[in-house]
């Protein structure tokens, strides 16, 4: 019983980590933009166009891992 629960948590855990990664990625991607007054070079900062998309992508790929670890629907609480 405990082993089953642990396995099930793994899939769910992975999904949660994936969600957090994706949200973190989107948060880091956000920020002020260019306006009519000035071009904002920060929109192309390393944080916003390198780290953020990498986090998002790893989250989206992690979801695939989470699905593959998914055990059947029928035996759970």
């Amino acid at each position, binding site marked *: 019983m405990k082993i089953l629960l642990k396995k099930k948590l793994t899939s769910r855990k992975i999904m949660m980590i994936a969600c957090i990664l*994706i949200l973190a990625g*989107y948060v880091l*991607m*956000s*920020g*002020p*933009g*260019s*306006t*009519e007054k*000035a*071009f*904002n070079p920060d*929109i*192309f900062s390393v944080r*916003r*166009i*390198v780290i953020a*998309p*990498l986090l*998002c*992508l790893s989250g*989206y790929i992690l*979801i*695939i891992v989470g*699905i*593959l670890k*998914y*055990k*059947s*629907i*029928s*035996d759970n609480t």
Partner: protein
Amino acid sequence: MQQKTFQRINTWMAWLMFAIAAVVYGLTVEPTASLWDCPEFIACGYKLEIGHPPGAPVFMLVANLFAQFAKDPSQVALMVNLLSAFLSAGCIFFLYLTITHFARKLVCPSFQNLSLSKVISIEACGVVGALSYTFSDTFWFSAVEAEVYAFSSFLTALMFWLILKWEDEADETDSDKWIILIAYITGLSIGVHLLCLLCLPAMSYVVYFRKAKRITRLGMLKTLVAGALLVAIILYGLIPGVVKIGGWAELLFTNVLHCPYNTGLICYITVLTCGLIYLYYKVKRRLAKLSLACVLMILAGYSSYGVIFIRANANTPMCENAPGNIFSLGSYLNREQYGETPLLYGPAYCSELDYEQKGDYLVPKQKEGKAIYRPSADSTKEEYEVIRHNIKYIYKDNMLFPRMHSSRHDKAYEQWMGGVKKKGNLPTTLENLRFFLSYQVNFMYWRYFLWNFVGRQNNIQGNGEVEHGNWMTGISWIDNLLLGCDTSKLPSDLKENKGRNVFYGLPLLLGLVGLFWQYNRGSEGKRQFLMVLLLFVMTGLAIVVYLNQTPMQPRERDYAYAGSFYAFAIWIGLGVAALSEEIRVKSEKHKVVLSVVGLVGLAIPIQMASQTWDDHDRSGRYTCRDFGANYMESTQHEGNPIILSNGDNDTFPLWYNHEVEGFRTDTRTCNMEYLQTDWYIDQMKRPAYQSPALPISWQHKDYQEGKMEYVPVNIDSINIGNMVVSLKDKKGLYKSELIVLEMLMQADWKRPVYLSISVGPSVLPFLRDHLVLEGLAYRISPTATGKQVDVEKLYENIMHRFRYGGLNHKGVYVDEDTKRLANTHQLIMSVLIDSLLQQADFKRALEVCRKWQKELPNVNVPYTEYALSMARCYYLTNHTEEADEIVNNLLRRSIEWLTWIETINRHRIGGTLHSRYEWMQTMLLTFSLADQFDRKEIMNKYRYQYENLIKKETD
């Protein structure tokens, strides 16, 4: 053989196919951006900017990852192209596994008696099918450039293979994960290209055949409906619906509850996700749980559009449709920029509007549709306002299944059809069907299919004429009948065209053999046949029906149908099994016979590769980047110039140079088509890199969507500084033209504005008398009278600033679009030579000739009549040999062409009259130049044929 051993061999072979495809595509990939949409996609991936609707956020994220491996910005394009190469190899990997899965089930249904010869047979199927697809025209084209089609082919192949994997393990307890994974990939594919949805109906049959207790005709019909319904629900329900409800949430929270923008959106997403997760854990029944899990996963993939939303709010320099609020995002996703085409019922191109009386006037009847909301233009308040309502015009004449629907293409329809019989204001049903079959189905689909599996005439876009873009077999008597001409007399231009690929119909034949064999291989065979057929039809003919294409497309559209060619490749693979199984029945010597069959089968993809390699190897070609840079280098270095452009190939390469390589970021490209939209004018009013905001004093509310789209004009001229712009022939001005005039006025000649040479004369006609040619662009000048040439600047640009993309390397592949751009360079070179000769500057004119022949050698960029300027210069400077070479070349080729055109059937020659006119012109001009410089030998050589052709022309 044991099942486990077989599966191991199978997997290893699949990886071998992957490796072969990866190497082939890796070697032939374009080292920089390619033409059309690729520069846009590369910039979108590298810097997370927003490209054309509906966007491809998943592609952006993965391209971004690949871009990180670039050593410097000039390698970014190569990395994204390698992404396409890599994913295409992945598609081949899954194609192999798919083919062997089908073959094994037909050759050895229950893994009993899996002899070595059977294994060889099965593996040979996979190899031949996979390699035939690897070397096929359409798939290879998309595999070596940065477009979404390689990615979408990969996802389609993956999804189809996943359902087969599920089918294998359907009895095991955790087989549901494959279904859920498919749902997730479907969701992700929304962020690549919607083409992937089209394999769902075929997949639903896999489920039906595996799970149904009894197969009945009614059951199969129900499955078909269910599959189609699934696609429809995702396409028309889920994708727009999710966004629409988000819009309602925004209206509620922002307009009614006065919360800041996007509060409603965040609450909505949270509620939706938590609600679905809660339901998932609450519900007990397995099917319901599975369905909820699938819905959640589709939404999870769809959530990738967060990238688009967030980056649009950053106001990146490239930000099409500015989808930074939920309403703009909705119109972006629905591709509203491209308008609607009627499908089941609607007006035809000749339908008349219905009018009604309104007071003293007759106005067209309109139906007011939904309200269009946008954030308030007033930045002090946070509220959504209705800027206008969707208007739909009501037509008096409507018909079922209108295939000739676009009023803008009326002449094109009539020309293709050779006249359209009408009943009242509508084409007759028969004429409608004739267009559907002859153009949309035959010309714009089957022709592409036959390109891939029978043979292709050349790489020039065709519109029905005999000489361009048709399919052919390579067997001369068949082709003579097909094309209605004598193919032995083809001009060398067409004979040597790299896009001429002939397969003698062998891949098609093998595929048909496989198709028939599969169908006749018992009930399992019939089921497989149905699945592959459905995939073939959905990703082929169904798209033809859905798109309702108009004639005069800007480019060939074969890339859209790669999925159906994938399906056919499955049949090609199975053709090998057909041959080997037939032989197994008749002969005893299994292994020998099978090896022969395998070799014969292998010969087909190898023969294909021998034909298609030369027109898909893009290595060493940098023309897109360099020619884009040349447009910008045509402008001066001071003053932050603005350059007005028109379409894709004179805009996106410039964007690429700006966004990815940071070249000439002091300039600004301004596309005339987009300038008609409010979001683009907004972007022009923002500074970008070193380019200050464009001088436009209007406010957003002045040029908002719906306002000032077309303004009638009743004045003769306007003054801009001391330049008088004549508006005599203009009945009205479009918003884009008004903005250009506004820019010129505000700039007050302090900021140079240029007009690309590629912009057609119908755009901004009133500026045509005020242009100075300085390169690939004209400077709009207040002091110019008529079209002038700034010889010094033109010389400096052509000789020193311009780069020529590696066209001087032997063997580089010059496709039709690249050739056209190279010809534009030749045009300005000829203008420069003529101007220098006029000034008696023979020394520099000769230098330009030398530069021309060095950078754009005849072997890669064949001479056109522009080269006559070069010939004239050589004659005037006593370089008669070089001049004779050009004259000989032009006379030989024009006579070859005209002689061949004479062999074309009278009733098919209509489309070729244009080519005939052009070559006649070339021949006349060249002959007269030879005459002018008394080149008796050349003239005597060609006099007989020349006079014959003139006589025929005047007869």
